[in-house]
């Protein structure tokens, strides 16, 4: 009985987390856009506009380039599928997500990388110069962001003696002094820069530009239309929400559900939404006052993040 009950509970928790991320992602993007518009003195579209855009896109005809292969259609699906999988197993609303023992931080990073690679390959399949350009720039940024990311994970894993994400969040909840430590701050600072790079926000990439010289992510998805484009937009917003959710749970895990039970889960979801919205507002505000960096200044930014992470790792070693 416990077995089947446990499985049903796990499926419910997973479904709740996935739904939260799938619906909350576009809403988060809407909130960030609204904040930017308000600061710039405009009214801006309503917060649920991205959801309406998605509904419109899914009802349109699907169009693909004539010389593209099956990779073009599969790319967005893999992007969303990886985001769905991570949403199901990450400690977003609860510290005991389903299959939580599989949610190794390293594994999650590489599942996200799978999504990026799928999109990059699909971009090259279009046969236009823009696809290649976006793909090339995105893979360069990804390659340069990886060292910062993995060393930041190392820095966070050293005090906890594990790289399992739910365990990291549980330990943070149990020992707040681990969160207020310099190595955690340094690692999370580096992680934040990597999130900005991976989800294509300023100062790495302008999500609303369509100029050849400045496009990175937008160039990759230029040829998508209809449901394919809907999936791409959904996937991107889900990734942003996921990464920010992981960031806030590592930085300030209070409110996350620590035990089983529907009430705790609801409180956890609410806390997650609240924290992620706050993080989104902060990032949107920061974006208003920042200009996009030149492509060849990005290695400096990412190298800075790498150095932060290395200093965090050494601090973690020395403090032990």
């Amino acid at each position, binding site marked *: 009985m416990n077995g089947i009950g446990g499985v049903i509970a796990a499926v419910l928790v997973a479904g709740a987390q996935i739904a939260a991320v799938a619906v909350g992602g576009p809403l988060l993007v809407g909130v960030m856009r609204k904040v930017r518009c308000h600061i710039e003195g405009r009214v801006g579209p309503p917060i649920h506009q991205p959801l309406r855009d998605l509904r419109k896109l899914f009802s349109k005809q699907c169009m693909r380039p004539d010389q593209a292969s099956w990779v073009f259609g599969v790319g967005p699906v893999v992007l969303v599928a990886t985001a769905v999988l991570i949403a199901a197993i990450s400690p977003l609303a609860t510290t005991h997500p389903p299959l939580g023992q599989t949610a190794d931080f390293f594994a999650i990073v590489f599942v996200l990388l799978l999504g990026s690679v799928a999109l990059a*390959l699909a971009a090259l399949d279009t046969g236009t110069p823009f696809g290649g350009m976006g793909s090339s720039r995105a893979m360069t940024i990804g390659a340069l*962001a990886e060292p910062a990311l993995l060393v930041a994970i190392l820095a966070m894993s050293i005090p906890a003696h594990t790289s399992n994400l739910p365990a990291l969040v549980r330990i943070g909840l149990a020992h707040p002094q681990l969160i207020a430590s310099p190595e955690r701050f340094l690692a999370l600072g580096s992680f934040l820069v990597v999130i900005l790079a991976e989800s294509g926000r300023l100062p790495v990439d302008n999500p609303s530009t369509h100029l050849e010289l400045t496009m990175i992510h937008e160039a990759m998805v230029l040829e998508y239309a209809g449901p394919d484009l809907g999936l791409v937009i959904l996937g991107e917003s889900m990734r942003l929400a996921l990464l920010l959710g992981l960031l806030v749970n590592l930085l300030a895990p209070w409110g996350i559900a620590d035990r089983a039970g529907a009430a705790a889960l609801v409180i956890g979801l609410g806390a997650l939404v609240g924290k992620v919205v706050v993080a989104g507002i902060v990032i949107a505000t920061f974006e208003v006052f920042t200009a996009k960096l030149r492509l060849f200044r990005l290695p400096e930014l990412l190298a800075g993040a790498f150095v932060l992470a290395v200093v965090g790792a050494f601090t973690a070693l020395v403090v032990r």
Partner: protein
Amino acid sequence: MSNLSLVITAIAGLSAAIAGCALPAKTRVHAAVAFTWGACIAALVGSLTVLHTGHAMVLNSSRILPLTGVTMVLDPLGAVFVVVTAVVAIASTLYWLGYASHGLSTRTASAALPIFVTSMLLVPAAGSVATFLWLWELMALSSLLLVLVDQRRREETRSAAQWYAVMTHVGASAILFALVMLSAHAGNQTFAAIRIHAVHLPAAVRNTAFLLALVGFGSKAGAVPLHVWLPKAHPEAPSPASALMSGAMVNLGIYGIVLVGDRLLGGGPAWWWLTVTAVGVVSALFGALHAATSTDLKRLLAYSTADNMGLVLIGVGASGLFATTGHPAIAAIAMVSALLLTVNHAAFKGSLFLSAGSVQVATGSRDLDGMGGLLRRMPITGAVFLVGGLAIAALPPLNGFVGEWLLFQSLLHGLPTSSTAVAIAVPVGVAALALTGGLTAAAFVKAIGVGFLGRPRSEGAATAHEVPRTMQLGAALLAGACVVLGVVPMIVLPALERATAAAVPGAPAHSLRSSVELRLAGLQGVLAPALLAAGLALAFIAVIAIRRLAQRRSHLRLALRRAEPWGCGRELQTARMQYTATSFAEPLQQVFDDVLRPDRDLNVSHLAESRYYTEKIAYRTSIGDVVEHNVYRPMIGAVNAWGQWARGLQNGSVHRYLAYGLVVLVVILAVIV
């Protein structure tokens, strides 16, 4: 019974070589392949028995080789390498059946390939110095013959073969010195005797032997700065030979280092393993960078081999380091991760080289800048290359990811430690792991995307046809191994643990507990690759289902429409306007300009009438190997200059030569006086 398997391997290999030499052209390749399969299967049976029971297989004969006799000892560590070689060989020889019509059906090639395979199968089973060196030399010479197969058609083949011959023999002489020194001190040339005597060796002898072995075996494994032969020889060899060289031969370099460092010398001081780790870090970064910026498909794969072997060396070095600082359990995990990385590399690199060979046969060239759109014209080869590329980029749910996860875990759990060496080595190792992972992902997105996707960029790519069935099957076999090893790595892990117990002194018998998931014993670290794969598949199906659902609910219900891509509204879109491999790699090349130092040649020619008007601008850029240009060519230049100077000694005068003799005689007599 199991002792017989090695004998059967040797006999079958020899018969394959004789069949390849003696039979007429129609049947020689088939007969050679059949006998080689027999050799591989016999070796597989023998080594699987060894791995299952954990007992080594010993064979002694003093009649086959004069003076020294033949001693074969197959223990679990060697058995792992034999299994890997056998599987890669079966796939490569299957591929050879279809490839033979492209120049690999001559008598020399048909004899050399089976000898190559057999010597690689028997090297890990060698139990004495003489046996090891004989088999090693046989392997080197047969692979040299294979590299030279195409030498009449291409000029570069001869130069590549020259580099390969010199470097492999420099390596072989270093190995010779190391092993002979050890056996001279032990008074006996069998490995068992050397092992027993190793504790009595003075430190200077141990250090020299280890360093020489590192140089010799490291050069075979492709460690920077001894790697310069790899990107020359691997592309020039025919594809089955390249797959064997990259998938099986470089592993034997790793086997040699573990053999000398752990099994013969029984471990050593920390600085040994720090050196190995440092070499690994440099190789991994250098190889990954050159792979990311290379436009020749096979050269890309060769540099990527150097990169992967660098990662394996990081694992081996970390294992030795942890063993020295007193953490045998984590040392065992690090060694298991190194072995797993080796096995994974054989699977995906073998399949990548075989599919690259298919591409070369179909399009007529190896240049990525001229390919494109091959996935539609060669669907199976394209799919196999895709699987191989995703596996090497360490993406779940394939096998590269499991290996890198295990390496990362062993590095992570090696801290906390009180040793500063470890405290510095581990973050450096992790950073190197990360950067090479990112660069490899970029390199293979480039290879797959520019090579197989988009539109054909040249005539050769536009008229490509799918290759014969055996060639597809050979590559697909290894790609299938990638998938299986990625989803259920547990089938190889017990064998690797037994091999580690044989290699690392003091290792616990079970450092991993694996059923459906991989669990590190006594530590917090779990990975469930099967569950990840199942989760991904489930999510994939769910998303497709939801999309279908959403489309069905739309009122338009229109079918999929194919149209010309928008491309920013341009009317004329040719295939030449796409990004090429060079352009794809350009941002990375600019970021790492100081390390790569590309040659740039810009020629601006002006009109005759006025210098203000340019007529033509020609730009040429090429990325050579920095180590080759700055280390090897000056060395070769110095040797050449010394040789030219020495020519003055030989001016043809008989009197001069007699005078040399007289002077030496007088000097010797004076010394006696």
